[in-house]
């Protein structure tokens, strides 16, 4: 994956020379991103999902684990009832459930809505963890070079040599099942991607004139790495990170589907699909709606990531 992200030479400028223009640079970048059709679509989808996630308790008519048979609902509801929306002609004598009712008398719409909160949180935290650790490893390896570089990068090569989901399953086997454990496993598996990306950027930037100048002026290695090089190496990480969030959401959902991530009855989309997989023929709505939500989220991040890449890649910019 990291190899697909081009080096962004044009945007890497000496911050000491253009400090006054930094805000306009970011504004230009944002404008460039929003000019991309795919990014626009991604922003709309993710904005919608983000709003739903933030206001889940307002949007969802019931709790995510609210059994409709018990107070304060106490509804006479049919198990596995199909979607019923009165406005669309559903019999008004039946209780209204936009996405139907599942096998445990939970309102599927409410669970899908609350699932957005979990999935987005999972995506950001997982990729954030991978970026932080990966950046540190890549930056230190790239800047220090020599045996430090060799040690870190060979370790990353080992991790990369395994299929990511298989490796994540192995990690979860060791540290136990659960949503946090699944995030940690997916995060660990993703570290090498960001480490390699950061190392490549650091290797390129550390030979630049402004870095040489800083070194000549007596700035410490730590200062050069964190104040001069890192700010100029972040752009590819942003692109990769945006694309990575969608993948992380999908992989955590896969672990939950297998029973290794979120434990039932947590309203996590992968877990919901897994829990109801045997109803695919007689109550398909239990699979379809969380499936659509999952696809939409991944699509949103992929579109946004593609848009950001297109906007920032100088070779695709003209």
């Amino acid at each position, binding site marked *: 994956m990291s190899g697909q992200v081009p080096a962004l030479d044009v945007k890497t400028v000496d911050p000491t020379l253009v400090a006054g223009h930094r805000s306009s640079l970011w504004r230009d970048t944002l404008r460039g991103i929003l000019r991309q059709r795919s990014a626009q679509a991604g922003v709309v989808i993710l904005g919608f999902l983000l709003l739903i996630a933030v206001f889940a308790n307002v949007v969802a008519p019931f709790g995510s684990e609210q059994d409709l048979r018990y107070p304060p609902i106490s509804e006479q509801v049919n198990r596995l009832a199909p979607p019923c929306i009165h406005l669309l002609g559903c019999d008004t004598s039946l209780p209204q459930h936009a996405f139907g009712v599942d096998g445990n008398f939970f309102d599927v719409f409410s669970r899908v809505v609350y699932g957005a909160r979990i999935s987005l949180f999972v995506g950001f935290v997982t990729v954030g963890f991978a970026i932080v650790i990966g950046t540190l490893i890549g930056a230190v390896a790239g800047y220090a070079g020599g045996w430090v570089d060799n040690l870190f990068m060979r370790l990353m090569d080992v*991790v990369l040599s395994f299929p990511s989901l298989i*490796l994540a399953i*192995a990690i979860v086997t060791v540290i136990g099942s659960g949503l946090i454990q699944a995030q940690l496993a997916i995060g660990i598996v993703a570290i090498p991607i960001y480490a390699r990306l950061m190392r490549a950027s650091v290797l390129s930037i550390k030979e630049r004139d402004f870095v040489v100048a800083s070194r000549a002026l007596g700035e410490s290695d730590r200062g050069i790495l964190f104040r001069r090089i890192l700010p100029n190496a972040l752009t590819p990480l942003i692109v990769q990170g945006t694309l990575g969030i969608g993948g992380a959401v999908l992989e955590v959902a896969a672990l939950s589907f297998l029973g290794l991530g979120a*434990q039932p009855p947590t309203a996590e989309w992968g877990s919901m699909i897994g*829990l109801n*997989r045997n*109803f695919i023929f007689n109550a398909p709505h239990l699979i379809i709606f969380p499936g659509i939500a999952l696809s939409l989220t991944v699509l949103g991040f992929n579109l946004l990531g593609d848009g950001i890449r297109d906007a920032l890649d100088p070779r695709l910019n003209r």
Partner: protein
Amino acid sequence: MIVALGLVVAACGGGGPSASASGTGAVPTDVASEEPFESSGTFEPMAWPEEPMDCSFEGDDTHAAYNGEFAQIRAVDESTVEFELCYADVSFLQKIAFSSFNIHDTASLENDMENHRILARPNGTGPFMITEWSRGDHITMVRNPNYWGEAPAFESLEFRWSVDSAQRFVELQAGTVDGIDNPGPDDFAAIEGDSNLTLYEREGLNTFYVGFNNNPKIEGFDNSTNPFANEDVRRAVAMGIDRQQIVDNFYPEGSEVASHFVPCAIEFACTGDEWYEFDPEAARQLLADAGFPDGFSTTIHLRDVVRGYLPNPTQVATELQTQLRENLNIEAAIDVQESGTFIDNSDGGLLDGIHLLGWGADYPDNTNFLDYHFGGGASDQFGDKFDDIVEALRVGATSPEDADREAAYVEANNAIREHVPMVPIAHGGSATVFQADVENAHASPLSNEQFAVMVPGDRDQLVWMQNAEPIGLYCADESDGESLRACEQMNESLYAYEVGGTAAEPALATECTTNDEGTLWTCSLREGVTFHNGAPFDANDVVLSYAVQWDVEHPLHIGRDGSFTYFSALFGGFLNSPAE
């Protein structure tokens, strides 16, 4: 480090005790193609132990008191075996018919036990011989050309598995398998409407229960914090679960709420008082009186494997979680474990909180249900045993008079109701489904379908799809139904259950007779029987097959994890058990 550890664990097949000794991938299992057996030509009758066990042995510094049923097992001659018992056992024939007591070839036991090869390459006398076990995918068996009985009408039998009833159903509809176990409860109507398929309903000779451990054997576990050490708490949970709701919503037709632990179709099963009625008010009061007015937190452990007694495991767990919260203010987290790990943890008494498990009849007798779970030789599944239950079950299992047995089971059932080691929830109806052209297809009430009698149309192969992969094929040390069914196609016991029924009938023995006291059984063995590798079957094979299970100090008492739970549970205990 985590990554490295993960890789090591993954390479070891999950690290749990269920990990296969033979690793992953296709396992070379073709015993028939091995070097031909060469007979030594002499027969020296074996006896185990050399002198009959002192049945009143009360233990010493190194050994625990002996409570077992056997005093000695001895070969009289090549085709006669005697079982000398410490006490009469009215269910003896039904017990020895069970697949945990399959007879294995002496040489195979000696050569394949220590290296665990026997777990994947049983050398039995049954109508099929194993040729391949592709881990995670399928087991292939071929017809035994030297089978002593009627040979199967088709060439090969393949076992496949899927935890998903939907997938099993789709494979059946697509014609890629000939028969499946446990169709989803919501698919019954669709199956009955499909003329290409035939549904065979299976009698609910099973029990699903919610178990508690009153003293888990978890290292460092402080039992003073265990709410389920308190009998009133267990009773409160028993009264706070609406079992009718569970059966109505998650079980197919033909299922019923359990009034007793053992299904009522079994003799003396439903004696004594019926189980507690659902009464959440009284349950909450009982819980408050026990010192938990605000409830407490616990864990529901389960495996996500469909069984006749539990067709929707995770959904039932979720329902139970809801009921505990709503009715008793008990917050329960759900912990889904891998099947083999879960069984091992359960047998080892390593599950705190609540666990969901069940039992399908291996033979239709109270001893199969009650002794296995609550008898003197039972595992640590429910923690410390209850002496009054153990004693009542001992009397029930050893009394030759029906009236005495009935009285004992009244006492046992009432004691179980009083101590509440578990809550019996349901006796689940289930079924098998076969392609309509499969002749002699059936659903066994004991879940031990015999494929050798079936005829899959004009096909040379019959493909069977069950709920899960067998854990091991040395079934002396397995208790999982999926393993037992596979074992039964390749191995045989002295007796066997009739096809599609429950009566015990001669198999490797032509008959077993007892003395007037019921303490000495003499079995005449079928002659001309050979194992899959050509070795002749004789009385020493019987003695050794039992001895390795019975005697803890036998060098071959190894198995998969060495628990041999069926032997201990059904025959009262092991020989030479170490002192506590």
